[in-house]
Structures are given as C-alpha cells and as structure tokens.
C-alpha cells in the first residue's frame, strides 16, 4: 500500500478504498453546490423568521411542505431530463391532465387502485410521444414539449369542459390529505421518493447511462449505450412523475382544476438549475434539485407572508431562473 501511494500525488490516497469511499460520500452529500444552497435556504429562513412571526409556525411550515410536494415529484424526473441534455415543458400540463383524468375515472366509479394506474398510463403516453419525437425524429426538445404542452392543456379543457371536478371518494382523498404520525402522507412519500431517487441516480447502472448520454451523445452511442431507449425512457418517466403529481394535487385539493400546474415547468426547471443541473446536460443530482425546490417554495412563502401581491411572484421567479442560469454559465466559463 505505501509503495503504491508513493507513486501518486500526495494527499490523494486513492488506493485506500475505505477512506476514499468515506471521503467521496462526504463530498457527495455536502458537495459545494448543495452546501451553498443549504446556506442560502438557512439565510432566507432566518430572515423570514425574524421579519414575520407567522413563518416559524408548524401550520405554515406544514403548508410549505405540502405546497412543494408536486414540484418535488416533478423535479425528481426533470433532473434526469436535464442531465440527459433535454428539456420538458409539458410537465405542468400533464399534471393538470392527470389530475382531471383521475377525477373523471373516479366519478365513473372506478376504485382508486384502478384509476391511479390507468391515469399514470395515460400520462406516460404524452412522455412516449415526446420521447419518440425527440429521440427518433430528432425534433428539438424545446419545440416538442412546447407543442405537447399546448396539446395536453387543450385536451384537459376538452375533457373537463373547463369546469373543476369535485366530490371525490374519501379513500382517494386520504392520499393527499391524510397524515401518518402527524406528518402529511404526501410529504412522507416525497421524502422517501427523493431519498431513493437520489441514491439510485448516483448508483444505479441504468441511471448512470443518462449522464453519459448528456455528456456526449455520440460517444455514448459508440460505447454501446442504447441512446434512443434511454432518451425515450426519460421522457416517459418525466410524464409519469408529472402525472403522479397531478393525482396528488387533485387528492390534496379534493378537486381537479383544469388550469392546475400552470407555471410548474418553469418553477421546477429553475429549481433544478439552482440545484446544480446544467442546461448543457451531463450534470445534476436529485438532492440538489430538491434543495432548489425548497428554496423556491420558501421564497414564494415569504412573498405571501410579507403581503407581496401574488402578481409579483412571476417577476421574482423569472428573475431567480435567469440569475441561476447566469451563475451556471459564469461558473462554467471560470472552470474552462
């Protein structure tokens, strides 16, 4: 061991698996980017705690947590889309469509255990169309998903006739409104999913392929990676997650709204970029994206608590998005 270590630069200790594994785990958990966001979140929360007494109440924090559930679910998938070098603008409209479809199926008397899987299949069709167009026909992801966003929102209006759907069965409402050990069920679900998704994205073989595809598509293909399959799977997964978010949203609100999910795509993409995903592809983690979602949620909550008109929220979130991308670009330029 000592002989081997002598040959390398001092301090790197790459031959000691135990120590380097420990180091890299630490590095991955509090990677510079993630640590930075945690600090920003702490600062924002502290400021809010001092300026508005309502912020640090369990009622408010619980509301924030529930509020970010749908964004967090979509962010899990959007992270993968961005890592692959892609983009998905249709998530908000898929959320609305799935929320409406599940309500409609329940009204037709289907059990939630049937209605939910069927809804997810419907959502996956949108992703399949996105994926096929982007991977096989090579249509620009921005254009493809923008088109699907329009088609899907319109479809939701057609199905609903433009009216909300309420009067949903109680066992379905439990998903979004129930609690376990005093914590909202949906929040527990998101925490669990994020943890699993984060570990899998770092360790699962199939998810590593996404980094390769986003890093250099041609090289990935010539390394034996089925690039098209990976891409299609990512868009299907993204739509399924957006659909699941729609089901949760309908359950939590007790009604399906045809205009649900408006602006979700921008919030989620902003959150992912803040969390370290690169629009150039090849980089990003689920944990980072979740922290991004958390930061966006706290800022929005702060605006509400400080009595800033809801009309200002778009200006703030747009500015945050541009700031995050600018930071990403400058950071990239400094590195190269």
């Amino acid at each position: 061991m000592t002989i081997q270590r002598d040959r390398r630069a001092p301090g790197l200790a790459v031959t000691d698996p135990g120590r380097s594994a420990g180091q890299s785990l630490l590095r991955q958990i509090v990677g510079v980017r993630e640590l930075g966001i945690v600090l920003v979140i702490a600062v924002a929360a502290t400021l809010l705690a001092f300026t508005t007494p309502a912020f640090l109440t369990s009622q408010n924090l619980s509301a924030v947590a529930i509020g970010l559930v749908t964004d967090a679910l979509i962010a899990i998938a959007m992270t993968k889309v961005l890592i692959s070098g892609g983009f998905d603008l249709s998530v908000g409209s898929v959320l609305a469509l799935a929320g409406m479809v599940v309500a409609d199926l329940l009204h037709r008397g289907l059990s939630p255990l049937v209605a939910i899987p069927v809804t997810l299949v419907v959502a996956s069709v949108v992703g399949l169309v996105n994926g096929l167009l982007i991977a096989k026909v090579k249509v620009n992801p921005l254009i493809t998903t923008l088109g699907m966003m329009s088609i899907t929102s319109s479809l939701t209006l057609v199905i609903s006739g433009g009216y909300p759907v309420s009067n949903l069965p109680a066992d379905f409402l439990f998903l979004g409104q129930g609690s376990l050990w005093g914590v909202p069920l949906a929040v527990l679900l998101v925490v669990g999913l994020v943890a699993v998704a984060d570990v899998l994205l770092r360790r699962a073989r199939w998810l590593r392929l996404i980094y390769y595809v986003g890093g250099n598509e041609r090289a990935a293909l010539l390394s034996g990676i089925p690039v098209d399959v990976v891409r299609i799977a990512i868009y299907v997964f993204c739509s399924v997650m957006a659909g699941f978010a729609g089901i949760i949203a309908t359950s939590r609100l007790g009604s399906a709204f045809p205009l649900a999910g408006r602006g979700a795509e921008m919030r989620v993409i902003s959150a992912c970029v803040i969390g370290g995903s690169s629009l150039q592809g090849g980089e990003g983690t689920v944990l980072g994206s979740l922290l991004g979602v958390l930061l966006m949620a706290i800022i929005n909550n702060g605006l509400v608590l400080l009595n800033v008109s809801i009309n200002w929220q778009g200006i703030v979130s747009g500015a945050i998005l541009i700031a995050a991308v600018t930071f990403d670009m400058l950071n990239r330029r400094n590195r190269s």
Partner: protein
Amino acid sequence: MNAFLQMQAISKAFPGVQALRQVSFDLRRGEVHALVGENGAGKSTLMKILSGVYRPDAGQILIEGQPVTIQIPRDAQRHGISIVHQELNLFSNLTVAENVFGGRMPARGPLAFEDRQAAARQAQRLLDRFGVAISPQTIIRSLSLAQQQVVEISKALIQEARVLILDEPTSSLTEHEAAALFEVVQQLRRDGLCIVYISHRLEEVFRIADRVTILRDGQLVGTEAVAETSIPAVIRMMVGRQLADLYGQRAGQPQAVVLTVEALTSPGHFAEVSFQLRAGEIVGMAGLVGAGRTEVGLALFGALPVSGGRVQLRGAGRQIRSPDEAMRWGLAYLSEDRRNDALFFNMGVRENISVSHLARLSRLGLIDRRRERQATQFHIEQLKIATPSTEQKVANLSGGNQQKVILARWLAIEPKVLIVDEPTRGIDVGAKTEIYALLHHLAAQGVAILLISSEMPEILGLSDRILVMHEGRLAGELTRAEATEERILTLAAGRSAIPAG
C-alpha cells in the same frame, strides 16, 4: 544566397509537451523549401508560429534581416506570409472570384457596390498565371479538388504574398491533379516567391523542392540541398532510429479466422468490401482520407447501416445493428475522433473507462463503487495512464493519456476483434510506442486487430497484411514482405498494383 526570411532558435511548449526546441529555419527568394518529419515532429507548430496562429516562447523571426513581431495572423498577412491549409477553407456555394476576394471585393460608386466585373477580371488574371482553365464565375462546388486548391492559392496571392506555406497540398489529390499543382508551384517559384512545402510524401519533395529541412520530436535534425541527399538518407534523419525499435516486435503467429467480411456495402460510403481477420494478427487498412476506411470500421461496429454483404464473427453469420450488439459479439472500435466520438469530457477517468462494462461492475442493477474504483485503478496501472487519481477529469489529461483511457475502456470488455482507427493521432512519440507495444501484446494474446491509419510508417511497421482502399472499394491487399510505401500509395491512388521488384 541571402535568406529572405529567418526563424531563429524558435521554442514552443504546450502543456505536457515541448513542441519545438531551438528550431531554426530560413527561406530564400524563389525557392521551394520542403519541411518534413513524422506526425508530431513540429512541422505544423513551426508554420503556425510563422503565420501568427501561435506565439513562440523563445526565438525570433527576421525578414530581410530585420526582426519582426508576428503575434496574430494579421501580422503575418501584413508581412506577406500566407498559408494554405490541408483542409480547404472555401465557401462552396460562392463563385471563384467571391472566394478569392473574400470580404475584400473591389467596390465601385458612392454606395460601394461590389464591382463584380473588376473582381472577375483580376481573378482571371491571377488564374491565368497558373495556366488552368477556371472561370471566375464558377461556383466552387463544381470544381475538382485540385482546382479548388488553385483557388485557395489564388486567395493567398491576392494578398500580395511573398511567402506561401503549403500544408500537405496533395493529400487529397490524384496523381494527375498533383502534377498540375506542381506546375503551379514551379510558376510561383519563377516569380520569386518563397514556398514552404510540408509533405510526408518524400517522392514529391524530391521532385519539386530545392532544399529540405527535417524535424524530429520538435528538434531540427538538419537542412539539406535536395540535389545532395537521397530519400533513404532523409528517412533516416526523420526516424532517427531503426523502424523495428519504434514499432516493436511480436511473438506468436496468426491463428484461426475470427472475422470474415463478404461484399459488405454501405451506400454512399463503400461497396463490396471483403476480407478476413485472424486471431493474433494485425491487419493494416490504408487509403487516402475519404476512401471509406473509417466507414468500414463503423459499419462493422454497427454504427453505420449496411445494405448488403455478410459478416461472420467467431464461426457464425451475425447481423450487427448497433454498437451494443457488436460489443456483445466481442468487437471493439477505437474511434479516430477522440474528442467527439469517444471522450466524456466532463467526467473522470473512472466513468470514462467503466462505460463499456458497467454490467460487470454492478450487482442487482447497482454499481459496486468499490469494485469500479479498483478496476479503474487496475487499468491505470496496466496502461501506465498518467493521472493523479481515478476521479481526474479526462479534459485535463494529455492526448496520449486520453487515448489510453479509451483503450482501457475497450480492453475491459476483452474484445476478440479490435478495430483501431488512427490510434496514435495527435499524441506524442512516447505514448505512441506504448500503444504500439500494447497492440503487439494484444495480438500475441490472440486478439485480431484491424489497424486503420493514415500514417504510412505505422501501417508498414505494425501490419502482418495491408488492405488498401480507394474510393470506397478494396483496391488491393499486400503482405508484409510485399508492402512498400510506394506500392500502397499507388493502390490508394486507384491504380493497379505495380509488379514486385
């Protein structure tokens, strides 16, 4: 005779490599001065310094005895130094005249409209000097490569060039076209221009140059009058060692056939290509750029669709539709284009190597990170990859080490057939010898290797047999004993093999 231009004791280093060490070079009026050396010897670097693309670390440039500073390409142009690159830089959708004048079309009238007639007249006068029948109004696309080369040279001359650098001007020309180009060069020499002629074709050098300067590993070996030296003498100066030392020796004999290709055809790329590869054999594939060699490699690897023909791999017919399938049958392909086709630049050495065999490093779909790191470490040691750690980004490695990383990626799947496409392009001599030794080692272990290369010494030094391609077809096959640079080039140029002796 006094030198018109002198480069004195020029040195230039790039990260990890001393490209030029105290090189001096001079040009006289009305001479063709050839610059020769193996790839990586420093020819291009020296000429890029002269044309203002790079700045030297040390040394100076004198024109007519006066020191000049050449910092950017514009400085070089101002001093009348023009370079015609190997790859032509023409706008194929514009006319000859428009290309010759570039952004500096002659203008007329108060609104400075382009004066097309004046442009055509001036361009015609220039073209007439070469005695080639090209009309200034012709669209570039419809010209032959040699004619385009003449346009490229005219472009340099319109800027009042006094020094013209030609970088491998004949590399994509037929012999007939090359002869026409030599006429042009002779004409320019009579007009008193200084011409630097970079080429690896020594026959050409001896045909048209007055003097020849030989570089090796960034150092000046010597400058000789062509009349007083010979091709073998120049080769000795270029190589500086016995060929066998550089390319190594191999133990073992070729064994059973592992790959049979029959009448393989890919429309627009190549047609009716047939050959066999044996275990333990290195087969060279030579040909000019664009002859379809890379495409054959890609097609065998499943990355380019084929319309006809059969591939037999390890005893059975195979349909290979994707690189994924090719890899499962024991095929690996090292791409000629590291940057675009092989490297994951934002990732580390570890991810770049394990991409080919993640399944073997995983358990239940999860990557065993400890095993992955150990495997990476093993490859780093085996191929002597110079990297501070398994996590080093490949962007920060030298070209030779990047190439070793990709070789490690392919060795990890233990291929039965390894296709290497320009395996030593753009890497230093040290890493080259290591890669040659590795190829010998693999062949000795029974791997069949198809070596696609444009470097003639490499093909001649490593191959047991040599396949030569010309315009998408196999033009011939030579055994190691039969093969000479001349015979390969004759086949590559599309002419039938000349008899031995």
